[in-house]
């Protein structure tokens, strides 16, 4: 029966979009189960890890089917999570035929990301605001804003395309520190530490940290640990990047500033 195969393929497609966009493990499993049930496949069973989906079906009445998808970690896209979630509710309510649902999923999968300009601006504004929270004055916030802009331009066009996660984050941490030290020595900003804290905020692994906790709390220990490891790794790398520049600066100035 072709139909069962198509249903499971649609379920895997929905699961793939969710997992890639940073949804929790139980949401991925639940959504796939909802879709298979809604289209009348009762024997569907899935196992989801943070980097892959395994789905099988088959019993006396239904044809055997198995599929394994490897899913690399990528940037979080909460708009896609919301869209698939909405779609799965509508599917459950019986609003779509299978063909329509697959078309909708394809549409969601192709949702464009915000333009780089907006993301760069957002990073700058976020850095400036958070600099204020950690005790920076107006001049510091301005410096953090500049550093945030440059940082995200670098992330979009260089580090996320060409560098590994480890080297990328070290270089990002270093870049921000270099910029802040530069602005500080030019007397644009007044508090070096607050400037740096504000501008490293876009690098802080808040997403993997939060998802890791959610997964562990749901009993998905393996995926939760992987995500927590990811969060720790990123945090360490950023810290190393900041530290390296400090050490270098110390050597160059003979320990004047620190």
């Amino acid at each position, binding site marked *: 029966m072709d139909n069962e195969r198509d249903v499971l393929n649609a379920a895997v497609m929905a699961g793939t979009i969710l997992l890639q966009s*940073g949804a929790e493990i139980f949401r991925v499993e639940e959504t796939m189960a909802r879709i298979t049930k809604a289209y009348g496949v009762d024997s569907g069973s899935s196992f989801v890890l943070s980097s892959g989906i395994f789905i099988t079906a088959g019993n006396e009445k239904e044809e055997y089917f198995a599929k394994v998808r490897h899913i690399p970690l990528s940037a979080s896209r909460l708009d896609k999570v919301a869209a698939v979630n909405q779609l799965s509710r509508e599917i459950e309510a019986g609003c779509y035929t299978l063909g329509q649902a697959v078309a909708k999923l394809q549409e969601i999968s192709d949702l464009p990301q915000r333009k780089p300009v*907006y993301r760069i601006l957002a990073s700058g504004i*976020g850095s400036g*605001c*958070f600099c*204020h929270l950690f005790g920076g004055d107006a001049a510091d916030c301005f410096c953090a804003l500049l550093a945030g802009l440059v940082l995200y331009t670098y992330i979009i066009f260089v580090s996320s395309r060409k560098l590994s996660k480890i080297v990328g984050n070290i270089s990002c941490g270093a870049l921000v520190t270099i910029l802040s030290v530069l602005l500080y020595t030019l007397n644009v900003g007044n508090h070096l530490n607050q400037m*740096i*804290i504000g501008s490293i905020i876009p690098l802080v692994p808040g997403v993997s940290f939060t998802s890791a906790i959610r997964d562990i709390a749901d009993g998905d220990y393996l995926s939760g640990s992987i995500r927590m490891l990811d969060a720790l790794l990123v945090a360490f790398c950023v*810290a190393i990047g900041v*530290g390296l520049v400090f050490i270098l600066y110390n050597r160059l100035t003979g320990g004047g500033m620190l």
Partner: protein
Amino acid sequence: MITEVLAAAVGTVAFALLFGVPRKYYAYCGLIGGVGWGVYRFLVDFCTVVEANFAAAIAVVFLSRLFAVRKRCPVTIFLISGIFSLVPGAGIYWAAYYLVINDLERAAATGYQAIKIAAAIVLGIVLVFELPQNIFRSRKRRAERKKRDTN
């Protein structure tokens, strides 16, 4: 403090954009971020940083679940952006800073502090997620649901 709450709200919206939150939810994300920081700032004068973070995390997660249930969308949307103002990014920085200038005592102290804050946030998230989904629904929806279940 008012400017700080505003900054937290605007900062949260900025990060919501980075994570691709749909535009119609920006206001809620900003509100959650602002409230989270407000709770933290208000309490930090009376108790320790860790306790204040715990209370702020509870506020953030509670509001996130409330909006998620009312707006019928995944809680992740609000939670990830709202929790951002609490995640100890500054702690990580200070730990690295003191480590580099060889002040190991303060490096360990700030590092432990960051871990304790993270643990407080974890506890806040886990506790609020134990609450039953029902209490977040409005009275009207609860009644509708009851009617549907009994039919």
